[in-house]
């Protein structure tokens, strides 16, 4: 059985002009032990989707529809207090996008940890201290950081402290939301290494990693889901996405990646024309059709169905559905 199952999830932002359909009918399965990458342009709903998956939403964002099950628990029917007590921090944790400011500024790291652990279990303070020390050692983080205030830590260190704090109670699923975009490459690599080590040490089972940087996903993800304009358009193993992608958008994204590699230099720079749509009024039919080089009549009219093209490989594109690709 998979760890996370999301079916037909819709999450909209209510604004004065109507609804922003940031997540629109998304279904997603995540197996145990898998690191899944979620990629797409900014504003395509990636961040909203992962926060919705753990029901970490506040107005003006609302869950409109859908069923979300995590480790046998039906999250979409729980109220917030139950989620906070039983699920968040214990079954699923998030490393937020703004991890640099995520730590309570006027409290030592260890005091924040104590508050979090006390929220879920009854262990004594001294046990929490020794437990945190052990965990920091295990993850090669300096133990002294526990007795420091957030502002005394460097950006990369703060980022890694947040990851350690999020996984202190060994959640089954860790959601990581664009953690590295503000870091320089060497710090980024350390953070990524820490995330991989978490799974190796069996501290977490699975992870969803959100980023716009496919080269980063390449390094750590087993599977990649591509999101466009509030929908998942393709989902497959990292290698399939990289070498055999079926959706024109996936293909475009991969080709837009610029890394210092001879292959890239040979292939040249290619970009996807146009701009991502406004999710207040998404285009009809396939949402990608205005930017798609292969758009057909049907693409403007009908939404493409999600088709399974291989073992754990789904694509939503009329080209694939009609067998032309």
């Amino acid at each position, binding site marked *: 059985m998979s760890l996370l199952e999301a079916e037909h999830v819709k999450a909209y932002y209510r604004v004065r002009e109507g609804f922003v359909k940031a997540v629109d009918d998304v279904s997603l399965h995540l197996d145990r032990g898998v690191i899944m990458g979620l990629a797409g342009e900014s504003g395509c709903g990636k961040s909203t989707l992962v926060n919705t998956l753990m029901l970490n939403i506040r107005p003006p964002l609302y869950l409109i529809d859908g069923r979300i099950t995590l480790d046998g628990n039906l999250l979409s029917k729980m109220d917030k207090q139950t989620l906070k007590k039983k699920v968040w921090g214990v079954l699923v944790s998030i490393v937020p996008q703004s991890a640099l400011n995520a730590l309570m500024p006027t409290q030592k790291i260890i005091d924040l940890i104590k508050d979090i652990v006390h929220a879920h279990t009854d262990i004594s303070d001294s046990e929490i201290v020794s437990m945190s020390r052990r965990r920091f050692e295990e993850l090669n983080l300096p133990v002294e950081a526990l007795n420091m205030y957030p502002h005394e830590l460097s950006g990369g260190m703060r980022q890694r402290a947040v990851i350690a704090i999020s996984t202190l109670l060994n959640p089954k699923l860790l959601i990581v939301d664009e953690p590295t975009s503000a870091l320089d490459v060497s710090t980024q690599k350390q953070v990524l290494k820490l995330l991989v080590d978490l799974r190796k040490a069996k501290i977490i089972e699975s992870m969803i990693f959100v980023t716009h940087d496919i080269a980063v996903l390449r390094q750590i993800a087993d599977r990649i889901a591509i999101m466009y304009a509030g929908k998942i358009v393709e989902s497959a193993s990292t290698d399939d996405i990289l070498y055999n992608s079926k959706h024109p958008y996936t293909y475009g994204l*991969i080709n837009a990646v610029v890394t210092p590699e001879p292959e890239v230099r040979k292939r040249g720079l290619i970009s996807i024309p146009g*701009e991502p749509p406004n999710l207040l009024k998404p285009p009809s039919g396939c949402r990608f059709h205005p930017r798609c080089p292969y758009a057909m009549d049907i693409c403007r009219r009908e939404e493409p169905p999600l088709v399974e093209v291989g073992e754990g490989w789904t694509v939503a594109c009329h080209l694939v559905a009609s067998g032309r690709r």
Partner: protein
Amino acid sequence: MLLEVKNLTKIFTVGFLRRKEIVAVKDVSFNVKESEFVSLVGESGSGKTTTARMILRLLRPTSGSVVFRDRDVWSLRTLNDLRWYWRQVHGIFQDPFASFNPLYKVDRVFYQVFTLLGDNDVDKESLVNEALKEVGLRPEEVLGRYPHELSGGQRQRLMIARCYLLKPKLILADEPISMIDASTRAGILQLFSKLRDEYKTSIIFITHDLGLAYYVSDRVLIMHKGSIVEEGSPEEIMEHPQHPYTKRLREDVPLLYRKWSGF
């Protein structure tokens, strides 16, 4: 030589009674030839933006000089001399939203620079329209709008269109695509190459992304903690990095077709 940067140093002083000195740029020297594409690579805080502003004559260096076509840029005093300089050397910045005064329509960035061209008898409108077409924008789509009504990509293209209008000899582009989606970066990057190819414009391209630098440049400068630590052709830098910082940078950049060991 088009541009010579000689021993450029910038020290910021903070505090009043207890003065503290921060060395942002330390003894930086390099040259740029006509129609050359030079990349300046470094992470945030390495001093690359400070360097760019000093070259653009927007920030006074503590010491050292910037010489453009044998004239010391920081000895230019009159508004006329300055206009001459900015007509030849223009800049593009990282945040395409911050580059526009939010209170005015985007057209302002074009009509502002006609004073630099110094010719009043031109058909301004058609020049602007032409420049917009060069960067792949339809005039009716963008003119008369406010910056917040346009996307990041459109705004940055407008900034490049301003350069097409001026056709400067040198463009300093400070992280011009780092705030733009990866999927549309290439299109904007190509506009710089086109300027270089068509008008022999030299480009100093400032970036934290070694991949981009490797792809577009004739020469790469690596900047670390305020100094240039290595200089060479993209191939030299990638294949035989000398400085430990360059080596680390190269190793830590995530690649698409190669996986890191230990992951």
